[in-house]
């Protein structure tokens, strides 16, 4: 299913909507409006790339979804439930959203396995998910399985700060999987890696997310990644959406023109 048909089906109510954003506005100061009146839906199981120049608001928009940043106005719904404003259940919303950061955000002193076990904290496991040493056997086994899925079971007991950038990002993906999320957000997951490692991480990330039928929104400055791995590309710029189209009909020059 390509993004064009997905959009159509979303509009026709055939495909469930995972994320619904309506008239979203965000500014950091009175003079500096990041974006305003942004609206779009993301169909369940689809992969959407958010692109745009520095300062266009890609990361800000992504961080608004799990309420890491408060919005000024507008609505966000996650699977039909309000996800911003006073009526939202922040914790419940966050538990359904996995987040892969640009700089992996692992705890360097802890083992890869413990970092992955941390992902279970989204499920209310409590103190047992603070460390692999406290985790019950089934949780440890699940964490190891998550590492297997990203091809890193052999580094389970290694400290996270001893891993390469690409390995660290894969462990961060495993931590997101451990969360058992319905939606995965990724903020420039390959930006801090060398081209080879970045390509490998994006390939693995997209393949895993497709296999697991996760709804994904990722930001990227790499236009090839947007075209190659996403069903749909949304370009932010000049305070709003400049382009929202299926990736299949686009080429790199179309996207590059948006930066001019």
């Amino acid at each position: 299913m390509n993004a064009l048909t997905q959009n159509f089906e979303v509009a026709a109510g055939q495909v469930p909507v995972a994320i619904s954003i309506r008239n979203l506005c965000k500014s950091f100061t009175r003079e500096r409006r990041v974006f305003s009146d942004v609206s779009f839906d993301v169909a369940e199981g689809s992969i959407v790339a958010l692109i745009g120049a520095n300062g266009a608001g890609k990361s800000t928009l992504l961080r608004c979804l799990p309420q890491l940043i408060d919005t000024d106005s507008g609505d966000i719904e996650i699977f039909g439930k309000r996800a911003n404003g006073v009526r939202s259940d922040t914790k419940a919303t966050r538990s359904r959203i996995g987040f892969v950061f640009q700089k992996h955000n692992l705890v360097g002193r802890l083992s890869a396995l413990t970092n992955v076990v941390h992902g279970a904290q989204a499920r209310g496991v409590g103190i047992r998910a603070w460390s692999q040493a406290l985790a019950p056997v089934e949780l440890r086994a699940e964490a190891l399985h998550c590492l297997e899925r990203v091809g890193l079971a052999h580094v389970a007991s290694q400290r996270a700060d001893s891993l390469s950038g690409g390995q660290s990002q894969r462990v961060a993906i495993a931590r997101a999987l451990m969360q058992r999320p319905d939606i995965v957000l990724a903020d420039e997951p390959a930006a801090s890696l060398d081209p080879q490692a970045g390509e490998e991480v994006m390939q693995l990330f997209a393949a895993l997310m497709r296999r697991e039928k996760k709804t994904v929104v990722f930001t990227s400055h790499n236009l090839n990644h947007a075209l190659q791995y996403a069903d749909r590309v949304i370009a932010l710029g000049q305070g709003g959406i400049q382009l929202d189209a299926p990736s299949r009909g686009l080429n790199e020059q179309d996207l590059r023109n948006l930066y001019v």
Partner: protein
Amino acid sequence: MSENILPTRFDRPNPLTFAIAVAVGAFVLVSFYHSGLSFEKLDRGLPALARLGAQMFPPSIERLPQVLTMLLQTFEMAVAGTLLGLIFSLPLAILAAPSLSPHPLCVWLVRGLVALFRTVPDLVWAIVFVIAVGLGPAAGVLALMIDTIGFAARFFAEAMEETDKGPREALTAMGASRSGVIFSAVIPQALPSMINTSLFSLEKATRGSVVLGLVGAGGIGIELKVSLELFDYDQAATTIIAIFILVLLVERASTWVRSRIL
């Protein structure tokens, strides 16, 4: 040669900075004058010091078993006081760290309490606890506990504040609880610094515990006080050497542990 004018080597101070510098300099001079320190006094004092030194040697080993027993008690007080202090420091540090505390008012109150613990000298706390729980090592342990909290809670809080915010954000984004974020992301990162602070606390408490006996709060201080008051300077020398060896051993052990763990 360049046509541009070279900048001056030193910036010309503004009048306020200059006035403050003059005032500080004047205060330093007045402080020396009021202390009464003079070459005449040093001239008289040095021979007296030499006489005291001569009376101290050779150190007497007559009361060595008692000195060693009191030394052990002193170290036990330091260990117990430090451990209790560290245990209470952890929750207080979390409450005193602005990014972890539940409320800014809580940060303000806890920081105030910790500052009070730190600014009042341990000898004063020892007097307070001697009045409260009576003479003996229990008062010393409580005084050392308070002193350790004043030191360790502040540095624990700073260590936690300085940790990388990334892992915290990652756990927050997935909906982890506040305690989950603290114990999974913050404390593991702050741990090396916290271990360092804990070892320094033990060194500090060992040094501090030596003098607590002077006010009756247990430990070897009472032994030193009695020796000096009875002019048994050779016995006082034994006590001082024993204290020196204990403090040195604790510092060496602490350095070794630091190098092994960190």
